[in-house]
């Protein structure tokens, strides 16, 4: 059974197939599937720590204040499009074209809790 430490993914740089940097892994989304908690998608963006802090209203207020929330380049990438078998070097498994389809809109906050 292959296992991987999800905590090691936090803040890692994600590289595309052509070694282009996409951003940093900001958050890992999981959902209940019956008894199991399964990883469904990864949030990849340019700021590593802010995702955690956004739980607080002031965090988001700060992001808004600095205009960081409507930043380009936040991706919500489904679990099967990233190879995480080596958590120190996560890799994107799809083309740049497909990737642009994962670009998050402004409604991305809705996923919380």
């Amino acid at each position, binding site marked *: *059974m*292959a*296992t*991987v*430490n*999800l*905590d*090691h993914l*936090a803040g890692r740089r994600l590289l595309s197939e052509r070694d282009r940097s996409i951003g940093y892994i*900001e*958050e*890992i*989304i*999981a*959902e*209940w*599937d019956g*008894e*199991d*908690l*399964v*990883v*469904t998608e990864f949030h990849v963006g340019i700021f590593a720590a802010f*995702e*955690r802090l*956004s*739980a607080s209203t002031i965090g988001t207020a700060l992001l808004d204040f600095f205009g960081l929330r409507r930043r380009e380049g936040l991706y919500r990438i489904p*679990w*099967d499009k990233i190879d*995480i*078998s080596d958590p*120190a070097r996560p890799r994107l498994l799809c083309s740049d074209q497909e990737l642009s389809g994962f670009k998050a809109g402004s409604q991305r906050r809705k*996923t*919380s*809790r």
Partner: protein
Amino acid sequence: MQLLRDILDKQVVDREQVKIGKVDGLVAELRQAKPPRVIAVELGSIALGRRLGAVPGRWAARLVARLSGKRQTRPHRIAWNKVRDIGVDIEFDIDVRQTKIFAWQDWLREHVIGRIPGA
């Protein structure tokens, strides 16, 4: 659920509400053609060391091995299916006394703290 925000680093308590530690690591199982499944949380200095990087992780493991007298040591794990409640704290349906998580505290009690009068 946001794993990094809502699970990682949260306080872990056992079924008696005893504070065991924080969620120092989060382990998932990679499956063929199915999404990764969370199978355990990790606790302890080795897990923490690894989060700081590979080198501190190795130091921590070596130190723990030296102190515990074992050749190789791994972080403590609690199976995810024991989870009972996820709130500000995360409660697991275990009894910490039946795990090895507090082995070092027990050692400390027996060899150091317990020997000082009045403990």
